[in-house]
C-alpha cells in the first residue's frame, strides 16, 4: 500500500502540475509531496522491522531524504516568484520525480533495479541542475550527466560480473544470493567495477570531478538535495554489496579500497578548499571531504561503522542547511566569489549566524554528530594502527578548518551597512535542520 502512494503521488502530481497556473501552487504541490513523504517515513520508523520492503538501511536513507525534502519544500515557498512559470513547472515536476527515483533506489532490493533507479536520479537531477539555463549551469549539467552515466555504466559492468560470480541460477535480488557459493575472483572484479561506478556518483576522488560543478551551479535547494540525499542514495548500493563482500569473507579487500578512496577524497578536498574562490564550490568540496571520511569509517570497520552512519546523518542535515544558507547569501549578493562578499553581519545578521553555525557544525564542533563520528573514526584508526594516516588526516582536517573559517569570517565581517531582507522560510528551514542535527548530536539515536 505505502509504496503505491509513494510512487503514485509524484506521477499524478506531475500531471496536475501541467495544468497549474501559478508558481505558488506548484510549490504547495511539492510541499504536499514532502509532507506525505515524511509522514510515510515516520510511519515506517515507528513500526520498523515488520515492513516488508524497507530494511533499516533503506529506512535510514529514506528518513534523511524526507527531512531534507521537507526543509527544501518549505524553503522553496515564495522563492520561485521570479522564475517563468513554464520552466518552474518543469523544475517542480522533475524535482518530484527525482525524489521518487531516490525513494525507489532506497526501497528496492534488486541490484539491477537499484542501478536503474540511480541512473534515473542522474537523468532527473541533470534537468534540475540546468534549471537556471545559464552557460555554466548548462555545462555543469552536461558534465554531471555524462560523467555519471559513464560511471554508472561501469557499475553495470560490475553487476554483470556479479551475475557471473554466481555459479547456478544467478539472481540479483539481495535476499536470494547464496553468499558461500560466490566465486571470489568474479566477486572481486565485480566489486571493483561497482565501487568505481557508484563511487563516481558518490563523488569519491579521483572520480569526483562533476561534483563541485554540479553543486555550485544548481539552485540552492537542489544542491542541498544533491549533496544531502543523492550522495547517500548512491552510497546505498555500495553498502549493500559491502555486506555481501563481508559475508563472502572479502571484507578486508573492500575496506582497503574504501580507505584508499577515502583518503584520496579528503586530500583532494583539502587541496581545493585551499584553492577555490567560489563559496558554493567550497561547500561541494567539503561534501567530498565528508564522503571521504565516511568511506574511511566504513573502511576501518568495527565501531567506526557506527561512526560512518552517524557521519552520513550529520553531514546530510548540516550540509543541506549550509547550502540553503549559501542560497540566501546568493540571493543577497548575486555573486558566488567569496572575495567579493563581505559584511554579511551587517547586511543580514540571521543568515550570517546561520552560516557560521553551519560552518562550525560541519567542522565538527559540538553539538554536531560529526564530532562524535570523528572521535570514533580517529580512535578506530589508532586501534588498528594507522598512526601516520591518522596524523595526516588530522593535519588535513585542521587545514580545511582553517581555510573554511578564514573564508567564512571574511564573508561575514565588514563595513557595508545597508540591510537586506529575506522571506521567513529561508531562515526557518536551515534553522530547523541545524536544530535537528544538534539534538541528534547530543542525543544519538540507535541505529543497527
Amino acid at each position: 500500500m505505502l509504496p503505491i502512494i509513494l510512487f503514485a503521488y509524484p506521477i499524478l502530481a506531475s500531471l496536475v502540475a501541467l495544468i497549474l497556473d501559478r508558481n505558488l501552487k506548484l510549490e504547495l504541490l511539492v510541499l504536499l509531496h514532502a509532507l506525505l513523504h515524511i509522514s510515510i517515513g515516520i510511519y515506517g520508523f515507528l513500526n520498523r522491522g515488520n515492513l516488508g520492503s524497507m530494511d533499516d538501511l533503506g529506512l535510514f536513507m529514506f528518513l534523511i531524504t524526507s527531512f531534507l525534502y521537507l526543509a527544501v519544500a518549505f524553503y522553496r515557498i515564495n522563492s520561485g516568484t521570479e522564475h517563468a512559470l513554464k520552466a518552474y513547472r518543469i523544475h517542480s515536476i522533475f524535482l518530484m520525480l527525482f525524489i521518487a527515483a531516490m525513494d525507489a533506489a532506497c526501497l528496492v532490493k534488486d541490484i539491477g533495479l537499484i542501478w536503474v533507479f540511480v541512473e534515473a536520479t542522474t537523468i532527473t537531477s541533470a534537468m534540475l541542475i540546468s534549471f537556471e539555463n545559464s552557460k555554466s549551469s548548462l555545462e555543469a549539467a552536461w558534465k554531471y550527466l555524462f560523467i555519471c552515466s559513464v560511471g554508472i555504466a561501469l557499475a553495470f559492468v560490475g553487476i554483470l560480473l556479479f551475475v557471473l560470480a554466481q555459479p547456478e541460477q544467478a539472481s540479483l535480488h539481495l535476499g536470494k544470493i547464496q553468499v558461500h557459493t560466490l566465486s571470489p575472483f568474479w566477486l572481486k572484479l565485480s566489486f571493483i567495477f561497482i565501487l568505481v561506478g557508484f563511487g563516481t556518483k558518490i563523488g569519491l576522488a579521483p572520480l569526483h570531478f562533476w561534483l563541485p560543478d554540479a553543486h555550485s551551479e544548481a539552485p540552492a535547494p537542489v544542491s542541498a538535495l544533491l549533496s544531502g540525499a543523492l550522495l547517500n542514495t548512491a552510497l546505498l548500493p555500495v553498502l549493500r554489496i559491502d555486506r555481501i563482500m563481508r559475508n563472502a569473507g572479502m571484507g578486508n579487500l573492500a575496506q582497503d579500497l574504501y580507505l584508499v578512496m577515502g583518503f584520496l577524497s579528503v586530500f583532494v578536498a583539502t587541496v581545493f578548499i585551499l584553492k577555490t574562490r567560489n563559496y558554493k564550490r567550497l561547500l561541494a568540496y567539503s561534501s567530498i571531504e565528508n564522503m571521504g571520511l565516511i568511506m574511511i569509517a566504513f573502511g576501518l570497520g568495527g565501531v567506526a561503522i557506527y561512526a560512518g552512519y552517524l557521519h552520513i546523518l550529520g553531514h546530510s542535515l548540516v550540509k543541506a542547511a549550509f547550502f540553503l544558507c549559501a542560497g540566501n547569501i546568493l540571493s543577497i549578493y548575486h555573486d558566488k566569489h567569496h572575495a567579493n562578499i563581505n559584511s554579511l553581519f551587517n547586511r543580514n545578521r540571521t543568515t550570517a549566524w546561520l552560516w557560521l553555525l553551519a560552518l562550525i557544525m560541519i567542522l565538527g564542533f559540538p553539538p554536531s554528530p560529526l564530532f562524535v563520528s570523528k572521535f570514533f573514526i580517529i580512535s578506530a584508526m589508532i586501534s588498528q594502527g594507522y598512526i601516520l594516516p591518522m596524523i595526516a588526516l588530522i593535519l588535513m582536517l585542521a587545514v580545511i578548518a582553517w581555510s573554511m573559517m578564514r573564508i567564512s569570517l571574511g564573508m561575514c565581517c565588514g563595513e557595508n551597512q545597508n540591510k537586506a531582507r529575506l522571506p521567513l522560510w529561508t531562515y526557518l528551514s536551515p534553522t530547523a535542520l541545524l536544530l535537528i542535527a544538534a539534538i541528534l548530536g547530543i542525543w544519538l539515536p540507535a541505529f543497527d
Partner: protein
Amino acid sequence: MLEILVLAFGVTLLFASVTNMLHSLIRILVVQGLILFAVTLLKSTQLNWLSFGFIALETLIFKTILIPWFLSDTIRHNAIHREVEAYVSNFFSLTLMSVIFLGSFALAIFSEQQSGKLFPLEFGIAFATIIKGLFIIIANKKLITHLMGYLIMENGIFLLSLAVGGDLPHIISLGISLDIMLSVLIAVLFIKRIKSTFDDADSPGHLRED
C-alpha cells in the same frame, strides 16, 4: 556462426578507430546494433514472442534505429562539422586499439582459467568495446563524439551481458535500455542547448579551478 558475428563486432571497433567521419561512426553504431540483435537471437534458448519482442525493442528499435537517427538528426540540425577531430592520430588509436584487444583477451583468458563459465572471445571483445568507448570519449573533443563513445561502451556492456551465461530478467534489461535511451535523449537536448549557447560543439571547459 556466433564467433563470426562477434569477430565482425570487433572489426567494427577497428574501423571505428580509423574513421574520420561522424556519419561513419553512426553507421558503425547501426552495424553493431544489428550484430547484437543477431547474437541475441542466436543465444536465446527458448524463443517465445514476448522475449522476441523485448530483444527486438532493445536492439533493433533503440540501438539500431532510434538512437542513430537522433544522432544524425542532431548533427544535421546543429550543423556540426562532420570531421571527428580527435586529439590523436588514427595510427596511434589503431595501435592502441590492438593493445586494448590484447589486454582484454589476456584478461578474458586469465579469468577463463579462474572459472570456466564464460566465452573468452565474446568476453574479450566486450571488454575491448567498453575500453574503446571510454577511449573514444577521452580522445575526442566533440560532444557528439563523447555521446557516440558512450553508446559504443553501452553496446560493449550489452555484449558482455550476453557473454555472461545467466541472462537478466527482461524487466530489468528493459529498464536499463529505457534509462540509456532517456539519457541519450537528454544528452542530445543538452548538446542542442550547449551548441546554441556556446555556439561550438566542443565540450565546454569553463568550470575549472584556477
